[in-house]
Structure formats: structure tokens, C-alpha cells
């Protein structure tokens, strides 16, 4: 006979020790879950394709920027801009789509 074994403390501690042991591996699985969560193999494949495309784009960008003469472009832009500013506004026979003239002409058809 061992009456000292059955105490309220023992029962209380058994509850918590028991729960801990019983749930240990389940909780363990949930803990490792973030490391297991898939970067889906399909996304991986797509990502690799993006990488290839991005590399190609970078190559093209590089080639274009190498070809581009920034100083010459600036000169060309400012020259063209001056020319445009120098021109005066004048009447034109071009009808703007959606304007009152255009709508009148269409309703007349």
C-alpha cells in the first residue's frame, strides 16, 4: 500500500506532464512547418524562367545603354524642343475625334 503516491499534486502534475508528452510530436510538426512549407516546385520553375528572362532583359538594357550617347541625346532633345517652341500655333484642318466638329459631322452621316 502506497498512499503517498495518490496526491492531488500528483494528479495535477500528471495532467500537464501527460498533455505535454502526448502533444509533443504534433507540436513539433507545427514548429518545423515553416521550414517545410513549399516553395511550390512549379513556382520554382517559373522563378527560374523569370531569372532567365530578367537576365536577358538586363543584357538588352546593358546593350542599349552602352549604345546610348547621353550627351548626344540631350543635344538632340534640346534642339528639337527649341524648334518646336519656335513654331507658332496655327490653324489645322485635322479634326480631333470626339470634338464638337467631329460629332456634328458624324450625326450628319
Amino acid at each position, binding site marked *: 500500500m502506497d498512499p503517498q503516491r495518490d496526491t492531488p499534486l500528483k494528479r495535477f502534475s500528471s495532467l500537464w506532464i501527460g498533455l505535454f*508528452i502526448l502533444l*509533443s*510530436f504534433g507540436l*513539433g*510538426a507545427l514548429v*518545423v512547418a515553416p*521550414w*517545410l*512549407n*513549399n*516553395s*511550390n*516546385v*512549379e513556382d*520554382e*520553375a*517559373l*522563378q*527560374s*524562367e523569370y531569372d*532567365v528572362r530578367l537576365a536577358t532583359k538586363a543584357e538588352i538594357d546593358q546593350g542599349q545603354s552602352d549604345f546610348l550617347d547621353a550627351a548626344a541625346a540631350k543635344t538632340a532633345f534640346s534642339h528639337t524642343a527649341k524648334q518646336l517652341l519656335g513654331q507658332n500655333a496655327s490653324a489645322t484642318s485635322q479634326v480631333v475625334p470626339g470634338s464638337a466638329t467631329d460629332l456634328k459631322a458624324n450625326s450628319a452621316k
Partner: protein
Amino acid sequence: MTFQKFILGLVVAFGLPWLLLIVIPFGKMSNLEAVSFDEDEDGRVGVYSSDQQHYQFGSAVYGANGCYVCHTQLIRPTYAGSDMWRDNWAGQNKDADDQDTRRESVPQDYAKETFAHIGINRVGQDLSSVGYRLEKEAASLGLSPEAFIYRRLLAPRDFVGKHWSTCPSQPQLFKKASPFAKSQNVVTFENAEGELQAYVPKKEAKALTRYLLSLKKDNQVPASMSYKPAK
């Protein structure tokens, strides 16, 4: 043996396989690196990915109706089984370009589903590339693939050369309808008493059909992933 020793022994005895059989393999398989084609060996560039579709609802209907009890979706390498050598199981013996597209299953074949329906029994045939067989049989009967599958699901033995099949009828995937209903999906046939019966597919039947027709797991894999002997 004390309780502490016992629990320690139990944790170690269970924990080791838990880690080595489940956690680590699951993690690695869920984070597979993409495999690239090799221009010389494969004749193409790019990264390998599966042709399969995200037919998750169809896959769920397949599971919910226990198709995996009698059908498998696994083409094993020849050291493990003879699936590769059965006609048109692992792909097409002869496709439109006269090529043999048959190959073993790869992980990407199942990547578009949440649970791979590998199957537990082969009462019926393997379904890895059943899409091709269904289309062929439908064409030979002059039916659309969908109409053919609806008929197969409702009356599996009602076809020439299939009277021995033990596939059960699946009327729960259909709704009874009038034989003169206007829907293009109406399936009509005579029952044993000679009466005309008509069914219209529910969304489950349509999803399952789409899923089955998409099962064509024979796209080209890079040589580095293939069991094919080098030429």
C-alpha cells in the same frame, strides 16, 4: 526500467524515423529545385515543369468517390514493376510525330494536387496517361471525350469489349433529367427494362471529367531526370 528511461527510449525510437522518414524528406520534396533542360542532350532549353492543370476540385471528387481504391496513378521504373511496358499506360506508344513518349512518374506530375492519388489497388488500369486513351476511344465511337466519359461513368460495362469490367456505376455524380432536355450534356441510354433514361452531369461529374482528360503525364523530362538509357 524507470518511467524517465522509458519515455527517453520512446522519444528516441520514434523521433529518429520521424525526422529521417517524414520531416526531412517532406521538406526537401516540398522545396525541389527546378531542373533545366540541356540543349545538347534534350534538344531544347528552358526549365522543366509539369503540364498538369490545377484541377483541384476534380482531384477531390476523384478521391471522395474512392477511384484510388481500384485505380493507380504511378508508372514505376522497371526495377520496381512492369508498368512502362504496358501499351499506352506510361504515355503514348506512338504520338502524332511517331515518337514513343512513355516515361516513369516524376514528382512534378503530382505537384498541382494536394494529395497524390497513387492508389492502393489495380483492379482497373493505371490512369497516369488515361487522357489519351479516353480521347481515342471517344473518337472511335464518334462521341466527344466528355460525352464518352459521362457514359463510362454511368454505365461502365455498356461498351463493346468492356462487359468484364467491375467498375461501378456512378449515378450520384449526375442528375436525372428528361430524355428530351435541351442541354448538350444529356446522356441517354436504355436501361434493362428498355426504358429511356437520361442524366445530366452535376458539377462533380464535369470536374472529374476535366481532371481525367488532363491526365497525360508523359511530357518530356530533362535527360538528367529520365530513366531512359543514354543513346
